[in-house]
């Protein structure tokens, strides 16, 4: 248990930056990804993504594999696995909850509107 915690600690420290966390999250969600693929979906340049991916790989958080002219990255298994699992599952839970919150607000707003008297009854 201590060993697992130590591993997670190291990962948490390394992922102290929100931008890097979302990058690891994005790689984890895809399974594997290249800088070009990620940059296409993110509001940053390919170079900026490539630099961060390379740094994350140097730190042992991602594994890099050459694929032709590109480098393909995947999330390193344990100890990162535990942390990434937490991040991905909690992130997915919030995506679902916030979508449900949005729907609930719409439904609640409509039901309240129908409780108000129709215009013809107003004085």
């Amino acid at each position, binding site marked *: 248990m201590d060993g697992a915690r130590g591993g997670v600690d*190291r990962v*948490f420290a390394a992922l102290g930056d*929100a931008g890097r966390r979302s990058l690891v999250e994005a790689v984890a969600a895809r399974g594997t990804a290249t800088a070009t693929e990620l940059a296409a979906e993110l509001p*940053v340049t390919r170079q900026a993504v490539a630099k*961060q991916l390379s740094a994350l790989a140097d730190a042992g958080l991602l594994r890099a594999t050459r694929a032709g002219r590109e480098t393909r990255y995947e999330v390193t298994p344990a100890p990162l696995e535990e942390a990434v699992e937490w991040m991905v599952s909690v*992130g997915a839970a919030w995506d679902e909850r916030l979508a449900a*919150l949005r729907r609930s*607000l719409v439904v609640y707003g409509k039901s309240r509107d129908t409780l108000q008297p129709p215009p013809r009854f107003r004085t």
Partner: protein
Amino acid sequence: MEVEREIVVPEAPEEVWEALTEPERLEEWFATEVELDARPGGEGVFRWGDGDERRAVVREVEEAERLVLDWDDGGSVVLELEPMVEGTRVHVVESSPEFAPALELNALSLQAAAPAWTALAAA
């Protein structure tokens, strides 16, 4: 470690606040069964259909602005509402349980190789 999410809904902060703090409204989007005393020090019990149950204590309440819950496993969730022209920004940060501070070698090497990169988080 944190997971951060944000949505903008057309409703006013006061309306969204009800959905965040009233148990019967929380049951529409957050959990299947909810008990919550939305006052500082108040307790919350959240149950899901799969049998999962989480308990929380309310750490902070600022009406229509901010709600902070501490989970009994050491994690926490911060829900913030911000009024906008188009409605309300709902911002959520869930933090994993606390781990002892760790400045491991690879975290340091990562910070040295690629300093804070918050472009993604800001976007």
